[in-house]
């Protein structure tokens, strides 16, 4: 009886075999699945597997296992690759090696504790995780956000986008063999991280953007720091144009590699630079403006070819666009509160606790019980460096969320690997993984 139940549960919860078999041992259905790109179909249409054309040669193919510990799979991504000689026939990303159950943990934490949890998901752009979470909580709770908090959030997020893209430049260079680019990228990111440390107290996983505002006001002299950062980044970007963009070897490695068309990209749910490289002009900042993005002036960088070279160009130019936004934000930053003054959500200031019993009780209640949020749900997307990052929160009226789900751009974008890498060579698979820019913490959560 129990054995039957176990078998039943196994069958119900099975995610299928993660192994990829050689071509002559694989089921026909699986091969058609790989060749047809089932995920591209519009909703409501089912695929007739007989329609899909597939190739089944007689000669031997080799299954190569890239990862989970491999120098260029960006963490613990495992990619199974079927190759004939050097040519890649199929790829299959296998994920789950960094699964930590953060979404489940989010259900156990109170709303004001939640951002310390989500910030660890996409560890290269922590502010965006906090932002998506905070915006969703604010929407469910109906908080109003002081203007200055919005501007501070924009400032930190755009700086974070620069940091993330710089690290991408570094790892992309390293993946293609330009070893010193790795060091340059990390070096420049360090400038931004020390600014983050100055503002938030931490280099990564800041827990700075919280429901209702930000944790602390900007420190004195932040404007000078920001201007200095902008100057440094722009100067270094010119250097990298010399080192990388104008480099024929690098261009040959990326030009025409891993092509994607717009229909595939939209069908697979890809977002961010990956989607924009195919010519689709989708940027959450422009299409669904959050914070105060409708008040700043910036361009959405779009490619045409949908190959790795376009993605490279988009990211390089997005750094420059972010610098542009940061400069505008620094100019337009208003004075005022950095977090909401609603007493239901924000604890009283420290010196009030010494004077007033009510304030002490209020403070105590806020940090032991948290604030209650009326029942409802909300999904707010933001444009993270990797694409649309959204947080879906369901509230059941208590001080803890009933469900926290994060729509992770890396997870969706990783699906693009199979159509991108088909027909290329092994080095092209590396270039494709690199151009997707997955963060495995974000993929597995």
């Amino acid at each position, binding site marked *: 009886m129990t054995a039957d139940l176990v078998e039943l549960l196994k069958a119900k919860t099975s995610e299928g075999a993660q192994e990829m078999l050689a071509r002559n041992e694989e089921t026909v259905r699986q091969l058609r699945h790989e060749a047809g790109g089932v995920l591209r179909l519009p909703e409501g249409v089912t695929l007739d597997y007989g329609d899909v054309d597939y190739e089944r040669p007689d000669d031997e193919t080799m299954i190569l296992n890239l990862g989970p510990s491999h120098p260029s799979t960006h963490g613990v991504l495992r990619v199974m690759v079927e190759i004939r000689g*050097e040519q890649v026939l199929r790829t299959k990303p296998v994920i789950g090696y960094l699964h930590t159950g953060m979404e489940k943990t989010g259900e156990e934490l109170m709303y004001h504790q939640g951002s310390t949890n989500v910030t660890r998901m996409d560890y290269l752009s922590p502010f965006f995780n906090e932002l998506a979470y905070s915006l969703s909580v604010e929407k469910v709770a109906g908080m109003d956000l002081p203007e200055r908090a919005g501007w501070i959030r924009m400032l930190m997020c755009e700086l974070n986008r620069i940091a993330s893209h710089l690290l991408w430049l570094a790892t992309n260079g390293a*993946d293609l*063999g*330009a*070893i010193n680019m790795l060091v340059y990228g990390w070096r420049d990111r360090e400038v931004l991280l020390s600014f983050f440390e100055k503002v938030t107290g931490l280099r990564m996983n800041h827990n700075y953007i919280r429901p209702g505002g930000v944790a602390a006001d900007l420190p004195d002299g932040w404007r000078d720091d920001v201007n200095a950062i902008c100057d440094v980044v722009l100067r270094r970007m010119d250097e990298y144009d010399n080192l990388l963009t104008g480099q024929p*070897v690098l261009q040959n*490695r990326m030009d025409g590699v891993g092509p994607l068309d717009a229909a595939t990209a939209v069908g697979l749910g890809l977002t961010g630079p990956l989607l924009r490289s195919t010519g689709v002009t989708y940027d959450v900042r422009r299409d669904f403006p959050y914070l105060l993005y409708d008040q700043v002036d910036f361009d959405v960088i779009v490619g045409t070819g949908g190959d790795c070279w376009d993605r490279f160009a988009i990211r390089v130019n997005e750094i420059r666009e972010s610098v542009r936004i940061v400069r505008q934000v620094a100019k337009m930053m208003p004075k005022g509160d950095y977090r909401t003054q609603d007493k239901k959500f924000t604890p009283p200031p420290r010196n009030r606790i010494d004077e007033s019993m009510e304030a002490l009780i209020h403070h105590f209640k806020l940090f032991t019980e948290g604030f209650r949020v009326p029942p409802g749900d909300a999904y707010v997307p933001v444009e993270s460096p990797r694409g649309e990052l959204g947080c879906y929160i369901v509230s059941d009226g208590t001080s803890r969320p009933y469900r926290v789900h994060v729509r992770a751009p890396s997870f969706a974008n990783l699906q693009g690997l199979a159509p991108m890498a088909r027909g290329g060579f*092994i*080095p*092209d698979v590396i270039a494709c993984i690199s151009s997707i820019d997955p963060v495995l913490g974000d993929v597995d959560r």
Partner: protein
Amino acid sequence: MLAAVAAASYNGDPVFAKGITLGVWIIELVKLVAVFAIIMVGVLFMVMYERKAVAYLGNRWGPNRAGPKGWLQSLADGLKLFFKEALVPEGADRWVYRAAPVIAMVPVMVSFSVIPIGDTVTVAGYTTRLQLADPPWGILVMLMASSISVYGVMLAGWASGSKYPLIGAVRASAQMISYEAALGLTVATVVVLTGSLHTSAIVAAQHGGVLYHWNVFRAYGLPAAIFFVAITAEMTRPPFDLVEAEEELAGGYNMEYSSIGFALFYLAEYAALVTNSAFFVTLFLGGPDGPYWHTIGPLWFVIKVLAVLYVYVWIRATLPRLRYDQLMDLGWKKLIPASLAMLLIVAAGHISWRWGLAALSGSLFAFILLSRAIEVGRTQVEEGAQAELESP
């Protein structure tokens, strides 16, 4: 012409002129040990030189703990490697697996023996050249060594019994054989200029005058560049390090090696680097010839080798890696035709300038034909692919 006449009456090392006596034995033994020591010290130095230079180019300090300013780091690494456990993987072909590092190492060592480090010296009545051996087939030793060391890499990958090394081995054999043709043709260009295969004669022919006697100028520059690219690919140095390709194959052919086997591959790689830089200096940069003070030939030699080595380090720090098909394109479609044309031009120019001009125009014509042929081939392939896509 003068050089060719001189080379015709050229004999090997003058130390053998009086017959082989005990003194000759001792001298040869000392030179043997010296060459071995030079390679070993050169490798230890080169590893550190590269790590330091790449670090400085990349805004880092590099190793700075072991020894004065970290210069003993490579010695420490080597010692550590020799005390590690030597594992042989389960699926490996044991004998081939063990032999491969030695096959990679020995030819490189052998080929250094023909490099002239200086002119002749006289010790206790014996006049001898500053090179271990000066055989009549001289420079061919270098081609021989680079051909044989392919086997080391190839057998290592094949015998490891795992997939990444296998792919590395396949890449290695194709890459090294492709570039050998261009390498041989450029060496032939130098041999045509000198009229001798003796390395000492090649160096002697470049002596005298200021710099313009060097083969890099006498062969109109291009063969030197081709030779440089070809030996870079031959040694699988970046940007042609597809065989190891850290980011793709995670080490490639030497992935399964540990301990002494790995150390020997490492040693072979850097010994090849030092040796081939020395060959570049010998063939094109006049060997121990300098603008002034000809008595300090070995010093000039070392300076030039260091300069060439720096170029390798610089390239490694800057350039991304090529892809396999791009590498083959470069080798077969560009370097081999170019080196062949340069061989013809240099050889014809050696007879008279009219012949040289004729060869040049002929080469240009052939170049146009060849690029047209490549163009046509490419469009046909593309059209074929397009037709295949459009067919129902």
